[in-house]
């Protein structure tokens, strides 16, 4: 019986993201769920664009189907747990890279593929399209990213029936890490 071996070195080289490209940003609704129902909130708001130390995680649209953005979310664990994220609690917004680069303080939009192994562990799928918008926590940047979604709702909001993939996500979870999202083709 062949033994499954895990690669630790990424087989993927970052590619150049052009100004004509687009990226997807996923935002969650958990915080909103804790608010009184009477309190309406803009969605997304600026808190959805607080970057991690290495930048804001996005998906390079050219490299992933919208459906697979949600599947990837549904196959990922919540941080430091063995509990899958609920893909139905996320919404996705699309941004032109050309717009992002007009905001003062944003230095780069970088392709940063996530490779967790071949196969990747359960809960940590590989994400070739993963990219980073590099900036520090800055109120101007977060306000402008947030308002872009409001001002360009028709083109930015990715209207997707998240429940249409419930069964598919369930089946993929049942296959543990024997899925195309965990193995490098």
């Amino acid at each position, binding site marked *: 019986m062949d033994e499954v071996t895990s690669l630790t070195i990424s087989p993927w080289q970052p590619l150049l993201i052009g100004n004509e490209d687009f990226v997807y940003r996923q935002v969650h609704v*958990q915080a909103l769920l804790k608010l009184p129902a009477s309190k309406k909130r803009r969605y997304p708001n600026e808190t959805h664009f607080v970057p991690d130390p290495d930048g804001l995680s996005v998906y390079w649209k050219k490299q992933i189907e919208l459906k697979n953005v949600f599947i990837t979310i549904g196959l990922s664990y919540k941080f430091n747990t063995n509990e899958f994220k609920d893909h139905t609690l996320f919404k996705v917004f699309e941004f032109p890279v050309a717009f992002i680069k007009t905001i003062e303080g944003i230095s780069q939009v970088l392709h940063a593929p996530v490779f967790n192994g071949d196969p990747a562990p359960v809960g940590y799928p590989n994400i070739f399209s993963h990219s980073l918008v590099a900036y520090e926590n800055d109120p101007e940047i977060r306000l402008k990213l947030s308002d872009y979604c409001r001002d360009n709702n028709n083109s930015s909001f990715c209207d997707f029936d998240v429940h249409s993939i419930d069964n598919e996500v369930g089946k993929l979870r049942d296959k543990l890490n024997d899925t195309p999202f965990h193995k490098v083709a």
Partner: protein
Amino acid sequence: MIENYLVDDKSRKTRNDISWCDYDSMRLIGFNRDSKKENYFFDEKAFKKESGIIQLPKNLDLEVDLDGQIFTVPFTLKHIADEIEASNFIKKLEVNWDGENAKKIGPNIWTAAIKFLIEYSIYISKALNTIIQAPEINPCKDDSIDLSWRSIKSRLLINIRLVNGKFIAYYYGDNYNNNDPIKGSVSTETISEFLAVWMKSLA
């Protein structure tokens, strides 16, 4: 006493002689005719309505308890007090509240942000005769808090965080389309006249 803060919506002037306002003004400050249905403390029967003018009792100031520190908020800022009340959930968020490694929001951060909001709101009301809108009060995953406004004229984001042991308010605002932008940071310990004056556009 609240009478100094009540605004005549038609003249846009504060009245010092009598505590009153009309229904439109009442709605502006967060009270409406359906208040009883929403279980507000406010009892409309307590008011005498004459030609669209209602008399207000003089002891409607609100008290906001910030972890034992009591702040008195004029009734005209009730909409802001309501938002503060709703933001209490922030203090109960645990580590990883967003499923993506969010930090727990420290109680001192919430208190600093709310204190900042109250002090600016009252200052702008008293000194600049302007009632600003209530902001959204939102937690950020990096243990900071956002105060976010969108008025007809302007937009403003203030992010309050702890830096080197001091609470700092980082802000950016403009009149949309990058017009007349302001950007900077101030200590939460004192009121910046410059920022307060600009915030008048949040009415």
